């Protein structure tokens, strides 16, 4: 689904910056999305100087995606690279039998569409209201040649769909459903901390069905495991989307298979 209700294109950063300057705004710098971006500090953009930031902004469009709307589909031409400024995205492949296989979740500060051939090898969908910075791939690659430390940070630090898929493979290597679910919760907690958000309570942007698909479990098993962890006092279900980690050390032991 990519209707107009799904996507709001707020235009390119530079023209909005210029417009604000022309209109005599006393705070023109606030117009740049980089200045107000909450993900910037922990994203690959962090080390950019003001001048470099301006050059990056010149090729950037900011896009808002409504929950459950597609960002791109598998086999679409891979023309753009995205960074997630806010929100959560799931990436998935459609299997030959029509089933969907979620291969990763990406969060604010992560890249999307970074690794490609000619077409995207998977689909991407927003789980919650999501803001993206969109870069034309060729222009971004040209810019990276001119800003080598951005390229280096991108390689060395950036998380993207390949990293998310590797996280999933590690989780699937866990033997029991309980180990997988607990490892997943801790992964979300660690990811939130790494991205400058509180790691406890853990925010679950995804449905139980998405979690089940991602972990190779049934939805019933995921729900049953959450209930069991709650009964044992290891977690507290604050609401449908938030989990408090009551006994972190025990949860870590479960994740490690003890």
């Amino acid at each position, binding site marked *: 689904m990519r209707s107009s209700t799904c996507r709001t294109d707020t235009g390119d950063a530079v023209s909005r910056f210029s417009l604000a300057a022309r209109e005599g705004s006393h705070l023109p710098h606030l117009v740049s999305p980089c200045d107000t971006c909450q993900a910037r500090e922990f994203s690959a953009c962090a080390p950019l100087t003001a001048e470099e930031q301006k050059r990056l902004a010149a090729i950037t469009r900011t896009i808002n995606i409504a929950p459950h709307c597609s960002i791109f589909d598998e086999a679409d031409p891979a023309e753009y690279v995205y960074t997630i400024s806010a929100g959560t995205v799931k990436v998935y492949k459609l299997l030959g039998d029509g089933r969907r296989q979620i291969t990763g979740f990406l969060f604010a500060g992560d890249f999307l569409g970074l*690794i490609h051939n000619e077409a995207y090898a998977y689909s991407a969908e927003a789980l919650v209201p999501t803001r993206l910075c969109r870069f034309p791939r060729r222009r971004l690659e040209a810019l990276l040649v001119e800003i080598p430390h951005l390229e280096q940070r991108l390689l060395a630090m950036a998380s993207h769909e390949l*990293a998310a898929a590797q996280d999933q493979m590690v989780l699937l290597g866990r033997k029991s459903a309980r180990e997988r679910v607990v490892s997943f919760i801790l992964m979300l907690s660690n990811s939130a901390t790494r991205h400058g958000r509180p790691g406890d309570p853990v925010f679950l942007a995804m449905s139980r069905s998405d979690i089940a*698909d991602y972990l190779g479990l049934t939805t019933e098993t995921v729900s049953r495991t959450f209930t069991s962890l709650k009964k044992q006092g290891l977690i507290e279900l604050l609401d449908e989307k938030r989990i408090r980690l009551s006994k972190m050390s025990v949860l870590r032991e479960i994740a490690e298979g003890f």
Partner: protein
Amino acid sequence: MVDMLTARFLDRRTIDKAYPLVRTIVPDMTVARWTQFVRPHLVPRSPDWPRGVMTIQNAAGYILSLFAFEVRADLQESRVFYMDHIMIPNLPGRETLWACTIGAAERLAEMNGCRAIWAEFRGGAQRSDRDLLTSLERSGYAPAGARAFKRLEAKSGHTGDGSDGVTRVPRGSYDA
């Protein structure tokens, strides 16, 4: 940059973790086929003739590239380092990644007393192969010798489609 990317040997625990990268380069690869292929590579033929799979990982421990290697006896060069199944995805900054991957291979070859390196690549995205050849040439490599390839018709019992006897828990149907 080099110290932000680290070369690490693939081991049995990280076979699965490398799979998403392999699938990026060879889209129809299954976990079972990858596992069946790579496991024997992780066991050296003998202590003097090592082989294995080397990965390049970033600071967060994610595998960004890999290659298989083997030290072989060579009639003319004595000990030669063979690298193949070179898997480097198309991502911004890949030239740095190529340089790091080739550098890791050369260090490993030197450590093993090799006098030459053969780098072989095939089967990946065409653009990636071209770019890799360019990158190798920049590092002093040149096309040498000749190899010919012929795909043989599959005979019954050897389908090569991943039906290799390795079983896996189907997704979405696992219960504790």
